[in-house]
């Protein structure tokens, strides 16, 4: 068996004595989702894999396709990173220049830019005066995602969060990454939102907390079991219909209804069930007025 596409055995310190990430992490071809609360070390892990953290911060071994991505910089051609903070391009650089520059630096054909721009609906920003600094956060996030689409030669795709992206872009991005994963590329998606795990149809889930790998989940059944640990209390204010319809949705543990002109439905269950609950309530004739939810059993516990 060959070496994994990505192998990290390192300790990353931004401040002396405080580890932002410590331990080992491996990823093969296919989809890997790295999940964890804020400050778990997810972004740090991705940056170490992308080879953008110097050895001053990274103590240990990081291997991507068998090479150290910082010292053996040539391997970066095969690594595509979409950062969470859209800071890759300088603010006074035009969108066209930014994307063309990225394509050229990655050794890709500059003509690919037009294709990607059309795919992601960025045509309006190709105006010669449209600079990166004038774009909204969401559009700059789209530019980050465009980097993944521009990296046709990449073997390792790193996507740091899906925040700031509209649903069509999220779907396009995930479809593209799934197709690349099916072709054997290693795709690592970082998120802190358990709902994104529902989009996973195969591959592995790595749970990080406090800079350490808490758990590696290899199968769908194991994932279901793990997710069932996390319980939310959802409070839904509805009017009319049959509020008890919420109890028929899989993943719901209990339902209590305070009847009145507007009924208050308290549901204990998994957050991923929320959409199904709302659909069931609306299907039974309820008009939904307000939804609140709070985690009562944390997912990211040992």
């Amino acid at each position: 068996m060959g070496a994994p596409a990505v192998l990290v055995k390192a300790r990353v310190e931004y401040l002396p004595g405080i580890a932002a990430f410590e331990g080992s992490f491996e990823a093969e071809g296919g989809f890997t989702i790295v999940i964890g609360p804020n400050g778990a070390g997810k972004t740090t892990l991705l940056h170490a894999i992308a080879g953008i953290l110097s050895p001053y911060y990274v103590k240990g071994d990081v291997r991507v396709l068998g090479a150290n991505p910082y010292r053996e910089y040539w391997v970066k051609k095969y690594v595509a990173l979409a950062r969470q903070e859209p800071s890759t391009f300088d603010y006074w650089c035009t969108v066209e220049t930014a994307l063309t520059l990225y394509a050229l630096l990655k050794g890709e054909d500059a003509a690919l830019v037009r294709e990607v721009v059309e795919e992601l609906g960025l045509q309006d920003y190709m105006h010669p005066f449209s600079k990166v600094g004038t774009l909204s956060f969401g559009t700059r996030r789209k530019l980050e995602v465009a980097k993944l689409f521009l990296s046709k030669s990449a073997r390792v795709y790193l996507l740091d969060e899906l925040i700031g992206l509209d649903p069509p872009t999220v779907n396009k991005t995930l479809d593209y990454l799934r197709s690349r994963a099916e072709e054997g590329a290693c795709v690592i998606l970082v998120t802190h939102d358990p709902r994104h795990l529902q989009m996973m149809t195969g591959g592995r889930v790595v749970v990080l907390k406090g800079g350490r790998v808490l758990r590696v989940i290899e199968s769908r059944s194991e994932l279901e079991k793990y997710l069932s640990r996390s319980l939310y209390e959802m409070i839904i204010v509805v009017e009319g219909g049959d509020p008890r319809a919420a109890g028929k949705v899989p993943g719901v543990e209990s339902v209590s209804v305070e009847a009145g002109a507007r009924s208050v439905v308290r549901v204990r269950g998994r957050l991923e069930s929320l959409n199904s609950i709302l659909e069931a309530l609306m299907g039974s004739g309820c008009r939904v007025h307000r939804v609140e939810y709070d985690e009562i059993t944390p997912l990211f516990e040992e």
Partner: protein
Amino acid sequence: MRSLRSLRSSAPVSPQLFWLIARLNARYCLLNPVNALGRLISLTLQAAILTQVWGLNFGRSFAVASVITGAVGASYPRPLPPFSHSLLAEAPLNPRYIKRLNVSARTLLAIAIGFPSTLLLVAPLVYVGLLPASAMTIRFITVAAIIPIFSQQTIFSLLIFQIPELLIRWLRIPTGIGPPAHPMELAAELIRVVWRDCVFVIVGALTPVYFPLASLPPYLQAVAILFNPYALSIELARSTILGTPAPAWVAPAAFIIAAAWFIFNIVYPME
């Protein structure tokens, strides 16, 4: 999947990169209206100061300021804004290689702008009589243009930014982004400020705008010539304009120092 060896052999060094650097450099260089207006205001202020200090008429003071800052200005093409550190960090290129390309492209651009711009400044000033005819020599134009181009970024970068950062790193002082939030960060910031101010004061005091280099003790002359990128060109400019003879060694010394710093800049780019 292809083997690691075949992947490595196709690692890209884009042939379009050099062209791109030149294009971007040209796009962001000093030839834009805002920079030109700013330079004009700056020259007027400098001329007013020189008029008071030297007792020359305003026109001649303006000529002095034009020659000095005109040549120095040519060495300030902006350092490739589209190449952010974040983008370069993701590029499959040797960071040193790209810095060398950057330095080379900027130097070529500065030479292309520096010589003609100095010549274009000097010729009309000689024609209207604000500069002596001796200013229209190859030696004067070359020295006034070449020294700042080759040595400004390197020497100042080394003196003002690199040395304190090396010191801070050597002392293992943790530093973050933004205002200091920890006493150690405050210490690092203090090191930077004190160092920068001291270097500015020393370099400023050794700039021969208001006095000839020869009036300094020999060891201070050496320090000024080695560590002040403007010393020789300013010395030559003021001696030419005031009609006092410049020492014969100024031009060869300028070339030797320029060549040394240029080689240093290419081998150890410091951006």
